[in-house]
């Protein structure tokens, strides 16, 4: 039976609208999958295009190599594991050894330690207790942070569990090495595990395929390099786009030549460049870029003063710490936290240049006497900074 006539018209209209709404729903975008030919990294390609160098480049992430102890058995690495081993004893007990890596910092140290503590049924600790738990182990690959955690034996049937955990930051990744198993067996394996950590080596980071890694200490690309340019200190991990205001973004970068005695360090996620400076590489020089003026000169100087443990200053006090210099058409704003108190333990010498909507920071930090010694070289380095 048909509904009353008075209801027919609205009912039809509603149906019509429903059909149209369904049609409109089809506009919703769907997940697509497709294959694309291998392309050079767009960002690097853009930076290179801006520098009139045309060779495509692909980056090889650093991979670890190690010497596997003779009584460890390699297992098939599955899931998140990069590598997996077991060490068994004659009584049927075994220790599980894993190597896992994560991009970035892999979460904060406290969270990692507490995760491992949870695995051996230990209560979490606070940040204050962290330094007591973590030891360091110097190795060729770098300095490992190390924890040794044991659970209390709850009953005779379930033996106590022990966990040896170590981690290391490398090329924007953090590598976790873990050995876990019955306490007695892990104890017997501890020296072998430490020797394994010491055997870890990383292949050259971020070397371009098809070209030798040049030794010149620069992020500028050589104009003629048949074997391929050195891109070892171009950003190796996700970097912010330049021009990152609400306007369209672009990816061009400033270029420089660092003195040959400086050691290139793996640039972290936010760093455009990173060097170990001075005797034994005791000083850290970082190059970073951020959108806008990052608070202006006073905010920047006060942040640096805070970082070396000096009190903040007011606007009138600013000229005491700051100066300007010009190089290659770029005007640098310079700041030296040791200008007023050259005896303070730590010192920062920094330069800021505003270019293409971004503030580029060049910061040298370390013990005051060493910074004072390296300052002329730092100023000379600033003189090499130029636009592409």
């Amino acid at each position, binding site marked *: 039976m048909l509904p009353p006539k008075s209801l027919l018209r609205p009912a039809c209209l509603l149906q019509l*609208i429903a059909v149209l709404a369904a049609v409109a729903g089809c506009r*919703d975008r769907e997940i697509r*999958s*497709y294959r694309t030919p291998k392309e050079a990294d767009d960002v690097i390609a853009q930076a290179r295009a801006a520098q009139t160098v045309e060779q495509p480049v692909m980056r090889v992430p650093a991979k670890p190599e190690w010497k596997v102890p003779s009584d460890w058995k390699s297992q098939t690495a599955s899931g998140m594991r990069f590598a997996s081993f077991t060490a068994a004893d004659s009584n049927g007990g075994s220790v599980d050894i894993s190597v896992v890596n994560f991009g970035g910092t892999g979460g904060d140290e406290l969270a990692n330690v507490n995760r491992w503590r949870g695995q051996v049924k230990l209560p979490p600790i606070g940040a204050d207790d962290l330094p007591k738990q973590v030891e360091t182990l110097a190795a060729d690959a770098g300095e490992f942070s190390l924890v040794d955690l044991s659970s209390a034996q709850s009953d005779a049937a379930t033996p106590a569990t022990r966990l040896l955990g170590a981690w290391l930051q490398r090329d924007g990744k953090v590598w976790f090495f873990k050995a876990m198993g019955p306490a007695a067996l892990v104890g017997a394996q501890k020296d072998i595990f430490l020797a394994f950590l010491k055997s870890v080596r990383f292949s050259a980071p971020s070397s371009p395929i098809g070209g030798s890694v040049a030794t010149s200490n620069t992020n500028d690309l050589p104009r003629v390099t048949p074997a391929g340019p050195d891109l070892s200190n171009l950003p190796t991990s996700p970097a912010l786009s330049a021009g990152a205001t609400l306007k369209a973004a672009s990816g061009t970068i400033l270029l420089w030549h660092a003195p040959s005695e400086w050691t290139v360090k793996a640039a972290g996620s936010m760093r455009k460049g990173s060097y170990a400076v001075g005797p034994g590489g005791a000083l850290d020089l970082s190059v970073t870029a951020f959108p806008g003026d990052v608070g202006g000169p006073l905010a920047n100087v006060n942040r640096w003063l805070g970082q070396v443990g000096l009190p903040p200053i007011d606007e009138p006090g600013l000229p005491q710490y700051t100066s300007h210099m010009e190089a290659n058409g770029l005007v640098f704003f310079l700041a030296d936290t040791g200008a007023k108190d050259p005896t303070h333990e730590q010192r920062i010498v920094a330069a800021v240049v505003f270019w293409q909507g971004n503030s580029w920071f060049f910061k040298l930090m370390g013990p005051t006497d060493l910074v004072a010694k390296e300052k002329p070289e730092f100023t000379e380095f600033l003189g090499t900074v130029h636009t592409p």
Partner: protein
Amino acid sequence: MTDLGKGLVRFFNSLRLTVALLILSILLIFAATLDQVHLGVWGVQEKYFRSFLVFARIRGSDLSLPIFPGGYLLAAFLLPNLLVAHFCRFRLSWRKSGIWLTHIGLILLLVGQGLSGLLQRDNQIRMDIGQTRRYSESFREAELAVIDVTRADFDQVVAIPVSKLDGKQSIQNPLLPFQIRPVAYYPNALLRARSQMPSPLPTLATAGVGPELAVEPAPVTYRTDESNFPTAYVEVVTTEGSLGTYLVSSMIVEPQEVTYQGRTFHLILRAERDYFPFALTLTKFTHDIYPGTEIPKDFASTIQLKSDDGRDDREIRIFMNNPLRYGGRAFYQAGYANNDRTTVLQVVRNPSWLVPYVSCALIALGLMIEFGIHLIGFFRRRGKAPSSP
């Protein structure tokens, strides 16, 4: 015919309906024109014309209510109104063929506009001299690309529209060994380095570059000279547990790496891409100005087109009002940048692009026939009229 059918025919045959719809259309266009100040051209098109209902937010709340019929709804009534009125009022005969053709042309125009709204994709290509591009990028739409880069010979891309990141549902794809779980989505946001902030904002990210960055949500911009930076937190979840929560944003231009089961994936939020079965290389860009002025006279891109199947490898010149039509797409010269070293091409993909041309031709033909018939009739009557004394 049933009562229902008769009722519908009576409703759509009404001339009052036509007048009401036309008045509503005029009001809609008027309101959209005024609102263009706030939303820009693209914004008003989406809000007023490419919608069934126009919504307005109640002041002081997040609640939006429909206040006016949108362009699609008006068209959905205008089209049957035109069709029903046409079939009820005009009989098919030679004398009425002009009216018939004109009406068919009009109907086709409405249908074509609807199809364009649904199917047309406007993208762009920015290319420096010497660069090769195999894809265009959307002006407005963004996607989260999960790229399996493990193979040496090709990359396998799974492109997830950002609209899917705005929900609670985990995203699964047979090509991915993990799920992408949306955690938070911001249609526009700025990223700041947390280390550079006096009191850093919290971050939801646990892996990748995200832990070092803070997200500052920003209002969506509709201005043509500004871009939105869609940003999201997504968790990569496997059957063995989480691989971490990543911050993805169109402000982060380098991909973030996820390794799982011996395969390496890149995560990147980028402008939606449309890949071509051919490659375009910009070989030359010329930008002429009128002598003594800065007024552009002509700007043109010389492009080498190379198709994947090897059939085409030729040089093409794209300049103002002379687009390249190839592979179902039209490439228009849209702009230039970077001291004339970069060309900007607008790429329009519209499978119904011919419809407006056909409908205009039909309308013109119909009007010519209609007026022609009247004119001939007039001359005939004039010839038969008795001569005056």
